[in-house]
């Protein structure tokens, strides 16, 4: 059991910096997507979104990004950034395809517009 625990700790010790970096990227990207969705809703509906709606959008964006395959971020398995700024820089460098971002925006919009989709996700 001790050896097992050590093995597991070793695994998490090695994977955790990468998981933290990818999670940061997902968190930042989710913020970006949520902002785009809110802007889109405000423009198309010609109204301000409520606080509750902002929360729904953020939750939907978080859920969509959480499911993303880590390969999307094209990082090396040994990458362990020192700060959140380094992660933000990398995210800018990645220059995501506009279609990719658009598909995420549409997925979040669908969840926001369709209450049933929200229930399905839950």
């Amino acid at each position: 059991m001790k050896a097992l625990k050590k093995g597991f700790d070793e695994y998490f010790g090695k994977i955790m910096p990468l998981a933290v970096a990818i999670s940061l990227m997902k968190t930042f990207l989710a913020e970006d997507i949520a902002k785009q969705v809110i802007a889109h809703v405000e423009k198309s509906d010609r109204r301000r979104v409520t606080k509750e709606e902002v929360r729904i959008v953020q939750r939907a964006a978080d859920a969509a990004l959480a499911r993303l395959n880590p390969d999307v971020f094209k990082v090396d398995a040994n990458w362990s950034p020192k700060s959140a700024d380094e992660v933000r820089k990398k995210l800018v460098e990645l220059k995501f395809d506009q279609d990719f971002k658009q598909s995420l925006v549409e997925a979040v919009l669908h969840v926001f517009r369709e209450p049933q989709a929200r229930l399905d996700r839950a």
Partner: protein
Amino acid sequence: MGAKTKGPRRPTSITTAISMARSITLSVSKTATMNTVVSIAAAAFPQHAVVIFAAYIGLQYGWRAVQAYREYKELRKEMSHQRALRVEAERTAFRQGIDLTTRKLDSDVKSRIENHIAILLARPEVDAAIERSLGRHVSDQTRDRFRMMLQATASQFLLGAVEGGKGKLVDEAARVFFR
């Protein structure tokens, strides 16, 4: 009384080894939990079998996993004086296992792994890593969102390591665990 068993039922017989291995593998493959054991074993190659079964005890996947591990240990004990036979029995068991399993985890087992990951992530070291990553001037909401992302990503890595075929990065990370 006390006489050595002769013929195909003798403990060192390859037929006995294969039939024991097969019965273990078949019983192992009957439940979803055991399917997972075989899936992991399949992913890890036979030489990591002991670690894999031990991992199941560690992850507390129930009494059946403990039983499977004990049976497996018994098999090894009986075959220890004839290494080649033992290796062959292991290989037969795992080859059989690979054929029987779909390498797809049961949703209940998945949620158990995710719960276990959540427990593993509830550690001071992880909190320290989050502090280092986000800095101190972030809202509690961002912190919670980040923690959720971390839980999801860590689950992706571990479940992906078990199931396989979940992408280059996950596979590379899996090699760290199963090397």
